[in-house]
């Protein structure tokens, strides 16, 4: 009977789709990491529903960029790091990766800070929670089996929807939310603009492109299955912005209404307690914990992966430690350094976060331009180069993202100069 069911087109499509599902959704979920949750919480607390409209351009940028990665992955069967090395030479690759490694160490440290902050809500000391979390991450990745790991990751993605409950418990004003999309009150001052840049910037990060492309290759798809991959990408991006939406709403409905200012995602969870109840606060903290540990596993893994890929070292979790010493060495080193940064008393965590964001912002244009140039090269993509619409949208996204990141880097300098 099952075979009969498989013959109906809809079910057949659904079965293929479920088998392919994964890369886009996992990438989308890792995107909402500790840094992302912090940005969304702060935005919601400061500007209420007024920031929600930025999720629309973020969504478009995400879909456009990830679609190109997915297509390149399927057509060439090669990782983004491989392609950049082969087409742009060793020097540019080296500098991209120098930056990426530095930024990713900073980002991983931010993730462990998220672990420390969220476990703090449940009363655990960071000297206990962070080393344990690091060990857990290390064991899952090094000793674990890929299929189990992917399932754990997909489970993590589902957990992120705890923010939906948190937001509903905060009893938001749905009419105001609707209005904020139709008539956003855009303010033209530096602080507001900075927040917009932060929100868009946190959704499109350079390492994601590398991760996305590798994840697609691992699925060993053929070009006929491309349409299913698009759906995976779109669903992943929707999941990203939906989670972001509810985090902003949760903070807007409680903190903003009561005029509470926060600096960290942890503060948001704590402030939720008297306003929306202990359960809402715990759910928020749980979401933060899941997101942090999720990204703390993926980020160092992805980094070790593409560095080894580009420089020709053996890489992969299926290899033994002695077969791929560079890979495991790099993975372990990134985790260890990030944990140390968190555990050193008085470590300059905020400037580390800011600097890793700045490095990311500087790398993004380089990676995006390399990508667009390659995706338009018939030698690489054959018949699957960008068409005119794809190019228009792709370039527009790239130019806007570059302009935004340039603004983000330059605005402190300009304002300092004007003063």
């Amino acid at each position, binding site marked *: 009977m099952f075979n009969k069911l498989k013959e109906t087109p809809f079910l057949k499509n659904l079965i293929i789709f479920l088998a392919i599902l994964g890369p886009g959704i996992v990438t989308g979920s890792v995107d909402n990491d500790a840094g992302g949750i912090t940005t969304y919480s702060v935005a919601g607390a400061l500007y209420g529903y007024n920031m929600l409209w930025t999720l629309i351009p973020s969504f478009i940028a995400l879909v456009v960029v990830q679609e190109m990665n997915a297509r390149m992955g399927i057509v060439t*069967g090669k990782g983004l790091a491989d392609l950049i*090395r082969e087409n742009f030479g*060793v020097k540019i690759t080296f500098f991209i990766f120098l930056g990426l490694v530095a930024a990713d160490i900073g980002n991983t440290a931010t993730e462990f800070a998220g672990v420390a902050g969220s476990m703090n809500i449940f009363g655990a000391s960071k000297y206990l929670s962070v080393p344990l979390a690091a060990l857990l991450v290390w064991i899952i990745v090094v000793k674990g089996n890929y299929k189990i790991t992917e399932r754990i990751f997909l489970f993590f993605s589902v957990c992120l929807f705890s923010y939906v409950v948190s937001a509903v418990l905060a009893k938001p004003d749905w009419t105001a939310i609707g209005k904020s999309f139709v008539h956003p009150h855009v303010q033209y001052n530096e602080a507001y603009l900075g927040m917009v840049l932060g929100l868009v910037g946190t959704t499109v990060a350079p390492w994601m492109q590398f991760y996305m492309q590798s994840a697609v290759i691992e699925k*060993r798809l*053929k*070009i006929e299955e491309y349409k299913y991959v698009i759906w995976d990408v779109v669903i992943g991006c929707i999941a990203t912005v939906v989670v972001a939406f509810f985090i902003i709403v949760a903070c807007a409905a409680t903190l903003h209404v009561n005029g509470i200012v926060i600096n960290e995602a942890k503060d948001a969870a704590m402030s939720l307690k008297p306003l929306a109840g202990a359960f809402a606060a715990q759910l928020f903290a749980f979401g933060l914990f899941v997101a942090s540990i999720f990204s703390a596993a993926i980020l160092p893994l992805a980094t070790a992966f593409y560095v080894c890929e580009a420089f*020709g070292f053996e890489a992969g979790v*299926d290899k033994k430690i002695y077969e791929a010493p560079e890979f495991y060495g790099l993975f372990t080193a990134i985790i260890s350094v990030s944990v140390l940064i968190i555990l050193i008393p008085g470590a300059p965590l905020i400037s580390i976060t800011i600097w890793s964001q700045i490095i990311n912002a500087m790398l993004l244009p380089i990676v995006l331009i390399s990508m667009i140039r390659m995706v338009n090269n018939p030698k690489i993509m054959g018949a699957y180069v960008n068409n005119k619409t794809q190019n228009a949208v792709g370039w527009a996204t790239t130019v806007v993202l570059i302009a935004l990141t340039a603004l983000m880097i330059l605005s402190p300098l300009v304002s300092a100069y004007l003063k």
Partner: protein
Amino acid sequence: MINVLRKNFIFLSQIVGVPVVDLATGARLGRVADVVATLREMYPRVSGLALKLHNGKKVYLPWRQVARVNASKSVEVSVIEVFSDSLRLSENEILLKETFWDKQIVDIEGSKVVRVNDLHLLKEDLNIWLVHMDVGIPGLLRRLGCYSFVNAIVRSIFSADMEDRFISWKFVQPITPSIGSEALALKVHHSKLSHLHPADLADILIDLGTDERIAILNSLDNETAAQMFQELPLKIRVQLVYVLPLERASGIVNAMAMDEAVDLLSSVSHKKLNAIKARLPKEKVEQINTLLKISERVAGSLMNTDFVAVPHTATAGMVLQKIKTEAKKFESIYYIYVLDDSSAVTGVLTLRQALVSAPEKPVLELMRKRVVKVHMDTDVHDVAEIFYKYNFTAVPVVDRRNILKGIITMRDAFETVFPPIRNEIEEPS
């Protein structure tokens, strides 16, 4: 001064990018954009330069015009001929930088894929040969221009230089899909890949991108490609069937063992299946159609329709002769099945028996009459049990009238009963 024959090594990175200077006038003509080498000899010999002129144009400069090579400094040339307008390579020539720098190659000795950082060239006076691929970290640092700096630090700590990692040209198989429009595989005639075991070849293929996979497959004949296909994960086999030209894909399917071919074809779309079937011999298509209809849970789905069978009138010598001439198409040659006039199985003998007997001895005297066999609809688990019980390497499959239809090898039976084993080997995770 006497011209002493000096022998030494230089790196490609010490030639690419240096200024090209006119020997007579000292005028700078441009920079070295790439180095041309001819593949006619055992080791590729440098036969020219791709010179990038000041106006950005690339031209070809034959090597005989080069008067001196000063590593990392300049290339001095005596310009006799007018430069040809465009960069045109002859049939056996390749551009070294474009072909190898940052690209992947197959290291035949280590049977793995590595990325080339630099090329190690043997310089004998003005003759330069490509002898090694540099795949080590020093090569990477040399390209980045910080080798001496890093090496000085390393030396001060470990009091030793960093270790180079070279692969000799003898063990290098280039896999760059195409140079310009021509496939490199056509230029490098002698495929070194044939020295590799199909299973190792499959491991290499898994590590590569789509174009490189096609390039490697193009350098293999259908039989080798089919053997390697068996070792690839199903998903990659399917991917390849879709990206290869139909003629080539059908050629490989035709050379595959029947059970493997059916395994593969049952995973492709109807359209692809029909297109491939249209290019296969008629009797093969009939067999495939029959096998595709059989459920996966019964013996018929595992069987291979190529087996060694002889009429009951044959002798040991005839058996050996048959195996000698047709061995290539059989998956297993250890058991020889004896058929009666109606093609029903009456006995079996082993290759060992055939080898040690006098050639004129009739098979009827050698064979064992009691043949352990399975039916087309025997459950695959029962098939596996027979292997366990009797320690056979292959078992015959017969239909209701005892007509021999095919054989099942131990490997095929195990893969079905323990699918996790095959998955783990194919897709280590």
